[in-house]
């Protein structure tokens, strides 16, 4: 993967003085928490508490926390299947997120969605989608509805739609961005560019590997930012959301980061070059940010350790909650197929006759 296209910030930096230390500590607390949650998710998968596909945000913590620091309560969030961290940062209860992974009825989606399909209507986390690019048209549609229902302004709602670097080559991306550009919709498309789509590098997938440039085809401004820099991500996302809510100007934001492990928990990622793995580890945003904060005197080792320990405890509590939660009951199998009940809706179990004898 072309490391050259990425600007690294591994070396310790001083922070702009105007950055409140509490915020900085808060960001580290969040990053440490996402990290702990994802590492535990991996363990729980290994212990068969979690099934199906399970994709982690490991290595993307700065991107996750920076974006969620910028998004506002009234905004709508759409993501792909790599969604645990976003669910946590949108303030969904960790226990309910873990319960979703465990497939329990207390899960955020009632245990029906699992890892790929976290959803919370109230919190405006609008899912969690598993079909690559599938979230982009509905996200664009929410922005269309917002334009129809609300007036633009500093307090107006906007949509943030996350997608991966491999997702930009699917037709839905093109069709949706054209609509957003054509109709001036309040939406920010965020490409979380972790350099890989499963085993495929950006350069092997995209004829124009500078993905932010693709906005030009729709007169949508494109911005590339270091996704390992939580403050840079936050600021870029804030500016983009601002343009969306006040000017109805869609924006394409590209965040450069790394996927620390395999595509999903079962992928050993043998295809990955040693160089790439080294860079990924070198630029791991969690230890890097921790070191930056300590060097800047915002944290000391003890305080940082305390934060990490607290994160771990929180995750343990989440696991305990999930473990103690009941599985959904088969009697509720058909509960959510339709919102409006209608005559003759099928509700047979396998082996049932198609109808009662007349």
């Amino acid at each position, binding site marked *: 993967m072309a490391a050259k296209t990425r600007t690294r910030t591994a070396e310790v930096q001083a922070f702009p003085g105007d950055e409140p230390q509490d915020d900085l500590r808060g960001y580290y607390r969040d990053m440490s928490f996402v990290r702990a949650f994802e590492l535990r998710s991996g363990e729980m998968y290994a212990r068969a508490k979690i099934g199906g596909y399970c994709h982690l945000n490991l290595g993307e913590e700065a991107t996750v926390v920076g974006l969620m620091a910028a998004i506002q309560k009234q905004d709508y969030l759409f993501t792909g299947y790599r969604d645990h961290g976003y669910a946590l940062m949108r303030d969904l209860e960790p226990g309910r997120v873990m319960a979703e992974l465990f497939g329990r009825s207390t899960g955020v*989606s009632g245990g*029906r969605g699992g890892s790929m399909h976290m959803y919370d*209507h109230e919190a405006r986390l609008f899912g969690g989608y598993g079909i690559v690019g*599938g979230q982009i048209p*509905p996200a664009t549609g929410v922005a269309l509805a917002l334009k129809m229902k609300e007036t633009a302004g500093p307090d107006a709602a906007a949509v943030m739609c996350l997608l991966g670097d491999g997702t930009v080559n699917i037709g839905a991306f093109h069709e949706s961005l054209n609509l957003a550009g054509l109709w001036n919709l309040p939406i920010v498309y965020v490409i979380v560019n972790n350099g890989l789509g499963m085993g495929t590098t950006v350069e092997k997938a995209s004829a124009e590997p500078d993905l932010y440039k693709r906005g030009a085809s729709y007169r949508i401004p494109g911005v590339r930012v270091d996704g390992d820099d939580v403050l840079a991500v936050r600021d870029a996302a804030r500016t983009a959301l601002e343009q969306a809510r006040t000017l109805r100007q869609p924006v394409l934001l590209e965040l450069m980061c790394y996927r620390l492990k395999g595509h999903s928990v079962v992928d050993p990622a043998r295809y990955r070059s040693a160089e790439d793995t080294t860079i990924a580890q070198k630029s791991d945003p969690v230890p890097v940010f921790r070191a930056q904060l300590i060097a800047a005197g915002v944290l000391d080792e003890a305080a940082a350790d305390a934060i990490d320990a607290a994160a771990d405890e929180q995750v343990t509590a989440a696991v305990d909650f999930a473990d103690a939660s009941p599985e959904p009951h088969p009697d509720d199998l058909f509960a959510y197929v339709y919102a409006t009940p*209608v*005559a003759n809706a099928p509700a047979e179990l396998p082996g049932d006759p*198609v109808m009662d004898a007349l």
Partner: protein
Amino acid sequence: MTPKSTSEASLEAAPVDDGPATRVITYRQALNETLRAELLHDDNVFLIGEEIGVFEGSYKITAGLLTEFGPDRVVDAPIAEEGFVGAALGAAMIGMRPVVEIMTINFSLIAIDQIVNHAAKMRSMFGGQVSVPMVIRMPGGGGQQLAATHSQNLEVWFAHIPGLKVLAPSTPADAKALLTAAIRDDDPVIFIENLSLYSSKGEVPDGEQIAEIGKAAVVKEGTDLTIVSYSRGTTTALEVAHQLTAEGLSIEVVDLRSLRPLDRETICASVRKTGRAVVFEDDWLSYGIGAEISATIGEGVFDFLDAPVRRVAAAEVPLPYAKALELAALPHAAELAKVVREVLNIAPLDKLDK
């Protein structure tokens, strides 16, 4: 919703009990009036599709609506079915009630990931937190010499999918009452129209008419044999049923109206009475709508069946453009009459169906 304009009042004028006044209008007109009435009835309703505004619809179903309701309620979309169908879905997630026109069912293949993997799945997949009150209108059907890619009947695909409701009205009155029901329903509804029905006429009651989704209708009573059909096919079924009445045969016709949910009770009750059934469908025979109808009858009223259930469907070819081939490939009244007689073991009385 409270009435939005005086013109709506008239829509609700006729009291339900002593049957409302009726007018004879086309299927197209019935759709157009219903869309207008629903746009007036609910501010959350909007129309979106290709060429539905300035062009007034490829088949003129939306004529006049852009002028009356403006571009925010009648949205002309670029040629991007996956994009604008998915956008309608998103709008529905926050309470809008989009009515999408896909120019023909053939183009729905480009949007089908949004329809089947998203609209149909969301409510269940997200534990019932969101509903998707959207309608997708699209005509199917052959017989217009539009050739292989523009003449398909793929409703069986949608009818197979849990989470979707699939309607296929055969008359202007049902077009009105079922479209109203579809727009008021909180789930994604696939509304199947047919190119050759748009100009067909029928009596349509004035005022608000809301059909019950999931119910078939016995549109002609009879005792000798049941013809089951839907959409355009029902008009042919009735034509044949009446033609055979002249020959002393008593044919019952069941119009499915809803393909999903499927009203198995009404179908089987009819066949229990007649003991014989023929399915008439415009789609391809293998794995078509008729397969489920035949299987349902075979399972539901096995002991009452006096003859095998037969299906009259389209020949299994990509539909050719040439008229002679198109005629040969599509099912018509003559073939239906022939099969009805075969099931009744009656020799043809006339040449009409040769």
